[in-house]
C-alpha cells in the first residue's frame, strides 16, 4: 500500500512537474486537486482585465466653429500581453463632417517595468482617400512622470509618419489636476494629397484642468493650440486654411 502511494505520488509528480505541490493528492481526488490548482494559479496573478478610457471627450470652440473631439483607448489582457485599441478623431459641427477619424488595433507587450511595446494596424476612416498603416510604438511612463505614447506608421502607400504624445499631471489638490499635453507629428516625406509636409508637420499643445468627482469621472476645461509647421503649413495656406488655431475646450475624462 505504501509503495503504491509512493508510486502514485511519483507519477503525479511526474505528470505535474511544472508545479510540484501535490501532497494533497494523497487525501483528495487528484483530479479535483488539479482543477483547484489550476484555478488558484489563474486567480493569483493570472487574471485578465478590461480597461476602457475616454481620455478626451470634448467640445472645442475654434473661432466660433464647434468641433467635437474624441480620444479613447482601452485594452483587454493580463500583465504582460494585451490587446489594445485606440481611436481618435474630430467632427466639425458646422460643416457636419469628420475632419479626422482613426482606429488602431494593437498587440501590446510589457517590455520593461514602465513601458509597453505595441504593434498593429491603424486605419484612417477620414481624411479621404483613407489609409491603412502598420504601427510600431511604445507607450508608458517615462522618468519624472511623463506619460508617453510614441509611434511610427507606414501607410499602404509607403508613406512613413510618426507621432509622439506626452502628458504630465500637476496636482493642485487631490482632485483638481492640471494636465499639460503636447503632441508632435512628423513625416518622412511630403504627402501632398493629405496636406502633410516632410519633417515636423504639426504641433499641438494643450492644458486641461480637471476635477475628479470620482477617479473614473472627471469633467474638465482648458485650451488647445494647434500649429502646422513647414511644408504642412504651406499646403494649408495654399488651400486657404489657417495654420494655427486656439480653442477653448470643455470635456469629460472617463474610465472604467
Amino acid at each position, binding site marked *: 500500500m505504501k509503495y503504491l502511494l509512493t508510486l502514485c505520488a511519483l507519477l503525479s509528480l511526474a505528470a505535474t512537474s511544472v508545479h510540484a505541490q501535490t501532497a494533497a493528492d494523497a487525501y483528495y481526488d487528484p483530479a479535483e486537486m488539479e482543477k483547484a490548482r489550476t484555478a488558484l494559479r489563474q486567480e493569483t496573478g493570472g487574471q485578465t482585465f478590461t480597461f476602457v478610457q475616454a481620455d478626451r471627450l470634448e467640445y472645442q470652440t475654434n473661432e466660433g466653429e464647434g468641433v467635437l473631439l474624441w480620444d479613447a483607448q482601452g485594452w483587454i489582457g493580463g500583465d*504582460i500581453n494585451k490587446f489594445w485599441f485606440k481611436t481618435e478623431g474630430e467632427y466639425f459641427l458646422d460643416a457636419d463632417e469628420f475632419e479626422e477619424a482613426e482606429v488602431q488595433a494593437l498587440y501590446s507587450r510589457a517590455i520593461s517595468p514602465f513601458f509597453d511595446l505595441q504593434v498593429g494596424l491603424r486605419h484612417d476612416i477620414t481624411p479621404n482617400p483613407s489609409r491603412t498603416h502598420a504601427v510600431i510604438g511604445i507607450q508608458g511612463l517615462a522618468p*519624472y512622470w511623463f506619460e508617453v505614447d510614441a509611434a511610427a506608421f507606414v501607410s499602404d502607400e509607403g508613406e512613413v509618419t510618426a507621432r509622439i504624445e506626452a502628458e504630465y499631471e500637476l496636482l493642485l489638490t487631490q482632485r483638481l489636476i492640471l494636465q499639460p499635453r503636447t503632441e508632435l507629428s512628423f513625416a518622412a516625406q511630403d504627402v501632398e494629397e493629405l496636406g502633410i509636409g516632410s519633417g515636423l508637420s504639426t504641433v499641438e499643445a494643450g492644458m486641461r484642468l480637471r476635477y475628479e468627482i470620482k477617479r473614473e469621472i472627471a469633467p474638465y476645461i482648458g485650451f488647445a493650440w494647434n500649429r502646422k509647421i513647414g511644408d504642412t503649413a504651406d499646403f494649408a495656406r495654399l488651400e486657404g486654411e489657417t495654420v494655427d488655431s486656439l480653442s477653448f475646450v470643455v470635456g469629460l475624462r472617463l474610465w472604467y
Partner: protein
Amino acid sequence: MLTRRKLLGTTAAFGAGVAVQALLPAWARSGVHNNVKGLRALSGTNFDLIIDKTTVMIDGRRGHAITVNGQLPAPLLRFREGDEVTMRVTNNLEEDTSIHWHGLLVPFQMDGVPGVTFPGIKPGETFTYRFPLKQAGTYWYHSHSGLQEQSGHYGPIIIEPKDADPVAYDREYVVVLSDWTFEHPHRLFAKLKKMSETYNFQQRTIGDFFREVREEGLGATLNDRLMWGKMRMSPTDISDVTGATYTYLVNGHGPKDNWTALFTPGERVRLRFINAAAMTIFNVRIPGLPMTVVQADGLNVQPVEIDEFQIGVAETYDVIIHPQADRAFTLMCETIDRSGYARATLAPRPGMEAEIPPLRPRPLLTMKDMGMAHDMTTHGDMTTHGDMSGQDAMDHSGMDHSGMDHSNMGHSGMNHAAMGHDTMAQGGTMQKHNHPTGVGVDSTAMMPVNRLHEPGLGLEDVPHRALTYADLKSLDPNPDHRTPEREIEIHLTGNMERYMWSFDGVKFSEVTEPILFYKDERLRMTLVNDTMMSHPIHLHGMFFDVVNGEHHHKPRKHTIIVKPGEKLSVDITADAVGDWAFHCHLLYHMHAGMMQVVSVREKTREKAQ
C-alpha cells in the same frame, strides 16, 4: 478561569453539539447599533458553520457581506488546548468557499487553502474539518477563496490553555479590526490593476511643493522631487486601498457605531487584538492608558509596556490594560496611511465616550524605505558593522547580552557567504539580487537593512513608547535551539504602477516549483523587501522564530511585517510535512501573485528521485 468565563457569560459547558449562547458575549456587546444578528461565541468541540450571503448594516448603511452563521465578524470560536475539534462547514454561496485556521498548527490537509491543501468547498457541500489543538492563545479564521475575506468572512478564535494561564486578568474582550468596502472587491482589485493610485488621495500637491520650498529651500525640494520622479514612485504610496473606500471596523462596527467595551475601574482587562483586515495595517493606542503586551500571534511573550503598537494584517496582539479612572477611553486604531480609523470605546458605563484624537499627518517614505540606507544620521551604527551585528544595531537596553549565544548566528555549520553578518546588521553590504527583475519589478533594494528595532512606518517619531519586534521576547524558551543548517533568501518584489506583486520577481501564476523544506530541518529564511510597501508575510503550518537578537526567547510569529527596504531573518523548524501556503497577507497583493507554496518533504524521498 472557569469562574471568570462564567462571569462573562461567554461559554456554557455543553457536551457534543453546538453551544450557542443566548446572550451576546461581552466582547461583542456594543453600546449602540448591533449588526443584524449580533455576534455569538460558539464553544465546545463540535461546530456547525454556515457560509452565506447576508445583508449587514455598517455605520447605518446597508452592505452585502459573506458571513459565517449570519454574523460579521464570524462567531468567536472558543476551543480548549488538547481537545480535538470538528467543524462542519456548509457552503450556501454560489461560489466555492473555504476556511483557513490562521496560526493554528493543523495537519496540512485540514489547513483549508483551495488548490494547495484541499480542493475547496463547493456550493451546497459540507466539508468537515477535524484536528487536535496543539496550542493556546488568540487566533482567527478566514476564507482563503477569492476575495471573500474582504466581504466579511473572518472571525476570532480563542484557545484556552490546558494549564493555568500565565496572564492574569479579570475581564477580556476580543477586538477584531477589519476594513469594509461597499464596492465589490473584484471591482476594487480591477481598479488597482488599471490605475494603481485610484485610492490614494494623499499625494503630494503643488501646495506641498511650495510649503517645502519655504521650509527646506528650493534646491532640496527640487532634488527630492527629481529623485522620486526619476524612479517613478511616490513617497505617499503607503496603503493601496484607503479610507477613500474603506470604513474601518471594530468587531463589525464602524466608527459611528462606536463599539463599546465595559470595565470596572481597577480591573485588569485583556484585549485580544486581531487584525482581520484585507489591506489595512493599523496603529493602535488608547490615549491616557498604557498597554502591556502579553501575547503576540497567539504565543505568550514577556510582558512589555507600551503606548502604541502597529498591527499588520493577520497579526494578533493580546494586551492587558489596567484602567483606574472612572472615565471613558478611546481605543484609537489609525490606519498606517492615516486616511481613516477604526474606533471603539472602553468605558465604565454604556453611552460614555472619550475624545477621538485627530488623525495625525500621513508619513512620507524616505530613501531608507527604498533600501538605500543612505540616511546616515539615524545610522551611526554603520560603524559597528563587523561586530557581532544585530545585537549592536538593535540598541536594546533591557537586553541581556550575557545570555546571547553567538553560535546561534551560524558561525559553525552555515555558509558565511550566503549568511553573512549583514543579514542582521544595520548598514552592511550591497544586496545581491539573484531573482528575475522583469516587468514586474520596479525596484530592488541595494542596501536593505534590518529594521526590527523600529516600530513601523510613521511611528518612528511618536512622543511615546511604540512597540518594536525587537521588544518581543517569548515567555517560554523556544522549543528548537538548533543552529539553522541552511538559509534561503526570498525577495518581496512588485511593480506599483502595474500593480504586480510577487516573490523573487515571479508571481504565483508563473511559479513552477514550490519552495522546498526538508522534514525536521532547521532553516533560516531571510526576507528582503525590495518594494516601497510594508508586507505582512505569513507562512502556514509553522511558526517563524524572529531573529531579533534574542537567543532562546525569540518571539514566535505566524505573520511578520517586513518594512520597506528591510532585510530580516526568521528561523523555522520544518516539522510539518505537506504543502503550505506562503504569502503576503495583504489580500490584493496575494491576489496579484505575492504567494508561493512551501513544500515540506521527507529528505529521503527527495534524494531517491
